[in-house]
């Protein structure tokens, strides 16, 4: 095995890891804000991919141009999810909260299978396609573009949360809801905003993935699994942690698959996760 092959695996892992990171950031933001685990996160990713697919299929809009439309759709879905489902179970027991988001996941997937059928679909001839070679390492343009867009979205999210007035309010609400409320911050609006941002993250990732990945109702399952591991590895509620953890998972998956056996990719990721949980249960940057 040459060093080129290993470098190839590492680069592929980083490119995929940045997508995992953005998906995980959305999940982490929602958890950090209201301590609710969104088990439907992968299915929201699937909806984003279908949204991108249908914009292309019905109106001929390429994925790179339909990103804002998908973000708007998913942000509205996030606000809707908060006001019509999450708000009603906010003060319930954890079991009820888990059942609610898990039930939402099952419902979304079943509806997708009913309306879209279980067929695998692809976007044909997108604007960004093909690959290039650098010193024997091949990099796909769609994968490279997708990871750049995800990284850019990640930076925007970070700047929004840390440098803006609304971001400051979001952080305050995530640390102590009551204290934030008595400082004039409307927690319910913050929660709705958190859901809108969380689902906007999967909208960006989903739009980019549909450029080169099959679109089908179960597509979110594996991605959500990696996102959950990334959130736990990075630390629940930590957006920075999601970035580091997403990239680690991408590299472990890719390099592990290359060096040992690709069919055990999940095993390597979970092995790293278990190691971190044993050594540092709150994750790399976590506070829970």
């Amino acid at each position, binding site marked *: 095995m040459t060093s080129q092959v290993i470098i190839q695996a590492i680069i592929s892992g980083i490119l995929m890891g940045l997508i995992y990171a953005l998906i995980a950031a959305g999940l982490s933001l929602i958890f950090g804000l209201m301590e609710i685990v969104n088990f439907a996160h992968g299915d929201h990713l699937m909806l984003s991919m279908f949204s991108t697919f249908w914009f292309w299929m019905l109106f001929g809009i390429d994925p790179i141009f339909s990103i804002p439309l998908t973000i708007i759709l998913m942000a509205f879905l996030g606000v809707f999810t908060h006001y019509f489902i999450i708000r009603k179970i906010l003060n319930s027991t954890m079991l009820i909260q888990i059942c609610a988001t898990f039930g939402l996941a099952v419902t979304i997937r079943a509806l997708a299978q009913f309306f879209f059928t279980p067929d695998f679909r692809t976007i044909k001839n997108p604007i960004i396609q093909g690959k290039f070679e650098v010193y024997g390492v091949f990099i796909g343009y769609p994968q490279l573009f997708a990871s750049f867009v995800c990284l850019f979205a990640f930076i925007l999210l970070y700047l929004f949360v840390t440098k803006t007035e609304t971001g400051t*309010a979001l952080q*305050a609400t995530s640390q102590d809801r009551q204290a934030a409320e008595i*400082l004039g911050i409307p927690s319910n609006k913050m929660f709705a905003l958190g859901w809108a941002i969380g689902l906007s993250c999967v909208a960006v990732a989903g739009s980019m993935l549909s450029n080169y990945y099959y679109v089908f109702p179960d597509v979110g399952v594996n991605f959500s699994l990696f996102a959950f591991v990334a959130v736990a590895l990075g630390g629940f509620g930590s957006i920075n942690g999601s970035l580091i953890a997403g990239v680690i998972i991408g590299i472990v998956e890719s390099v592990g698959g290359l060096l040992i056996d690709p069919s055990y990719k999940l095993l390597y990721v979970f092995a790293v996760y278990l190691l971190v949980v044993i050594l540092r249960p709150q994750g790399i940057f976590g506070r829970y």
Partner: protein
Amino acid sequence: MSNLLKVENLSRSFGGIHANSDITFDVNEGEILGVIGPNGAGKSTLFDLITGFTKSDKGQVILRDKNITNIRPDLICRLGVGRTFQKLKPFADQTLLENVIVGALVKEKNLKVARDKALEIIDFVDLIEKRHHYAKELSTGQRKRLELARALATDPKLLLMDEVTGGVDQRTIPGLVELVLKLKKNGITVVTIEHNMKIIMDISDRILALNQGKRIAFDTPKNISQNTQVIDAYLGTVDAA
């Protein structure tokens, strides 16, 4: 002196327990009103009812002729009511300065202006040298000042303080008391829950005494100290037999 706050027949039960029953009192502008009572008397519940964290079963809360009964805490804050908590609630992973900026952002939309205002207030509560320390690194007394600074940053006309001197060491208490008196000098009306009887008698203009969710007295400190119901509530009734 005009009323800033009027509370009329405020009641709240949890199951069969009457946490607050027909509580009525008023707070004049610029005064310090002390709230006393044994544990479980309903003092913190009263604060929760006034600030909208708990919905009342009956009665009303009037802030300068505006009925604020059962409205959301964030709206009550925007109307000029600040509050600190008995169980401290700092944003532990943020610095002292960041904590106070959150409060300042209620009125100031510009982050830089909010930061300058926050620094001024941190100086007012004598914690300027700790401004870049994380809240979790501060002592209990310093966290009390942090909460006070954060509440002051919202420009309150009325400040509800839940046990300012509770849980702090004896050396810290005089500084905190001085701070409360400084608030009064600055024109802020204060309602404070306090267990330390000497302090409450010294700083309050009037005192509201609660016991088992009911108002048992509402008077000047001098009269309160001679009120038999208050004495009974704190020391227990002496059986004549």
